[in-house]
C-alpha cells in the first residue's frame, strides 16, 4: 500500500492489533480533549459574558485594524527579505574574496541572532545611541535581516544543486557572469526552491507575532488588550482562540500554497526525468527524419524536441 519501510500489509493478527491501537488512540485523545473542556467549563470559560466581547462590531473593527498591521509588517518584510535574499545569495557566490567574505559573515550573523533580540536591539537598544525607531520598522527590519539571510542560504543551495553543465553552457554561448546568473542559474534555482521559499514566508508571518513583545499593535497585541477588558471578565483564552484561529487560517493558506507548488514541481520533475532518460530511447518510426540521411539537422532536432 504505502512506500513506508516500517510495516507490511497487515495480516489478520496485525489488523486486530491495529484496531486495538486505533481505539486506544481515540480514547487517549478524547480524554485529553475532555479534560480540557471540563476545566474550561469548571472555570467558567464558556460563559456568555466572556465570549460576549466578540459580538460587538467595534471589536471586529479593531481586529481588522490589527490584522492590517500584521499584514503590513508581513508584506513589506516578505518583499524586502526576498530582495535581500537575492543580494546576499549572489554576493556569497561571488568570485571575489573581498565580496564573498564580508557577505558570508553578515549572512551567518543575521542567521545566528534570534529575531526577537534583533527587534529589541532596534527598538530598545538604538535609543541609547540617540536613534528613535518606530516599532513597525523594528519589526520589519529584524524580520528582513533574519529571513533575508535564510532565503539567501536557500537560494544558494538551489543554485549549487544545479548541474555544472548549466553554467558552462551559459558561458559557452558567450554570456557574461551577470547573464549566466540572471538568465540561467537564478530562474532555475528559484523554481527548484519555490516551495522552501514560500514555507519561509510562513515563518515570516508567524514571526510578526513577535512584534507583540516590543509593543507593535498587531493581532496578538490586540488579543492581550482585549483580554484585560474587565467588563467582559477578562476574556484571555477567548481572545487567544479567536486571534489564534486567524493566524492559523492565514498560515494554512500559505502552507497550502507551498505544498501545492511542491506537488506540481514533483510531478513536472518526474515528467522531465522520464523524458530525459537516455537508457530508453524512443522507437524510431517510419517517416522519422532520423531514418533518412538527407534529413536536415533542424528536422532531426525538432523531432527530438517533440519527445
Amino acid at each position, binding site marked *: 500500500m504505502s512506500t513506508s519501510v516500517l510495516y507490511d500489509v497487515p495480516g489478520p493478527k496485525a489488523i486486530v492489533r491495529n484496531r486495538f*491501537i486505533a481505539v486506544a488512540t481515540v480514547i487517549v485523545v478524547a480524554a485529553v480533549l475532555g479534560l480540557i473542556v471540563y476545566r474550561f467549563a469548571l*472555570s467558567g*470559560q464558556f460563559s456568555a459574558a466572556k465570549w460576549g466581547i466578540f459580538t460587538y462590531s467595534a471589536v471586529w473593527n479593531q481586529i481588522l485594524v490589527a490584522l492590517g498591521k500584521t499584514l503590513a509588517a508581513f508584506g513589506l518584510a516578505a518583499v524586502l527579505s526576498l530582495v535581500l535574499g537575492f543580494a546576499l545569495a549572489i554576493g556569497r557566490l561571488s568570485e571575489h574574496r573581498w565580496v564573498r567574505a564580508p557577505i558570508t559573515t553578515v549572512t551567518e550573523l543575521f542567521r545566528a541572532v534570534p529575531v526577537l533580540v534583533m527587534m529589541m536591539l532596534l527598538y530598545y*537598544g538604538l535609543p*541609547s545611541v540617540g536613534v528613535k525607531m518606530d516599532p513597525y520598522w523594528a519589526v520589519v527590519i529584524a524580520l528582513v535581516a533574519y529571513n533575508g539571510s535564510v532565503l539567501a542560504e536557500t537560494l544558494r543551495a538551489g543554485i549549487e544543486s544545479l548541474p555544472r553543465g548549466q553554467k558552462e553552457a551559459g558561458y559557452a554561448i558567450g554570456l557574461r557572469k551577470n547573464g549566466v546568473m540572471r538568465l540561467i542559474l537564478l530562474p532555475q534555482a528559484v523554481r527548484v526552491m519555490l516551495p522552501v521559499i514560500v514555507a519561509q514566508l510562513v515563518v515570516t508571518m508567524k514571526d510578526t*507575532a513577535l512584534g507583540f513583545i516590543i509593543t507593535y499593535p498587531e493581532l496578538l497585541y490586540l488579543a492581550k488588550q482585549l483580554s484585560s477588558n474587565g467588563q467582559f471578565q477578562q476574556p484571555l483564552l477567548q481572545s487567544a482562540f479567536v486571534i489564534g484561529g486567524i493566524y*492559523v487560517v492565514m498560515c494554512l493558506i500559505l502552507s497550502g500554497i507551498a505544498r501545492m507548488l511542491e506537488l506540481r514541481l514533483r510531478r513536472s520533475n518526474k515528467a522531465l526525468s522520464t523524458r530525459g532518460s537516455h537508457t530508453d530511447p524512443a522507437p524510431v518510426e517510419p517517416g522519422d527524419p532520423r531514418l533518412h540521411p538527407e534529413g536536415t539537422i533542424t528536422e532531426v532536432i525538432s523531432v527530438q524536441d517533440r519527445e
Partner: protein
Amino acid sequence: MDVIFGNLDLWGTAIQNTLIVFVGGGVFALILGIIIGAMRVSPVPIARGVGMVYVNIIRNTPLTLVFFFFVLGYPALGLPRLSPMVLGIIAIGIYTATYVAEVLRAGINTVPVGQAEAARAIGLPFGQVMTLVVLPQAFRSVVPPMMSVFIALLKNTTIAAGFSVSELAALRATVNDSAGRPGSPMEVLLLVALVFVVLVLLLSAVQHRLEKKWRIVR
C-alpha cells in the same frame, strides 16, 4: 566591561534560565515529537490523522501565541499553580515537538524500501529489520536536520522573555528597571546577541561534524 562585571549575578541567572528552558524544552519536544512522529508513520489511520492535525495546527500557530496560551492562559483555568518557567518549557516543547516529528518522519522515509525488503528476504524478523537495518540509517539521516531544530529551539527561548521568564533576552529590562545597574540597553542587547551567536555557531559546528562523520553514500 561594567555591563558584565557590574551585573554578574544577573548574567548568571539569565544564562542559567536560558539553558534550563533550552534543555527542558528540548527533552520535552523530543519525547512528544517521537510519539507524534511514530503516530504519523503508524499503520493506524486514526493515529496518522491525529498526528497530522496536531502538526498542522501547532506548526501554523506563532510560537508567541502558544506562549500566550500557556503562560497567560493556563492560570485562568484554576489548575494547580505552575511557574512561568515550567509553562514556558511546556509551550516551547509542544511547539518544537511538531518539528521533531516532521524530521523523524522525513528521516524514516529516506530509507529505501529495498533495504527493508532485503533484510526480510534474508530472513530477519521484524525486530532485527528495525534495529539492524532501518533505524540506524534513519538515525543518521535525521541527526543534521534535528540539530537545526535544536538551533531554532535555542533561538526561540528568547520569546520566553516576553512572558516573565528572566532569561537572556529579558536582561535588558532588568538592568534598565533597577537603579544603579551599569550598562545601556544597547550594550546589554549586543552582548546577549553575541552569546547567542557563539552558542549557535557552536551547535552548527557540531552539526557539520556529525554530518560529515555520518554521511551515508547512496
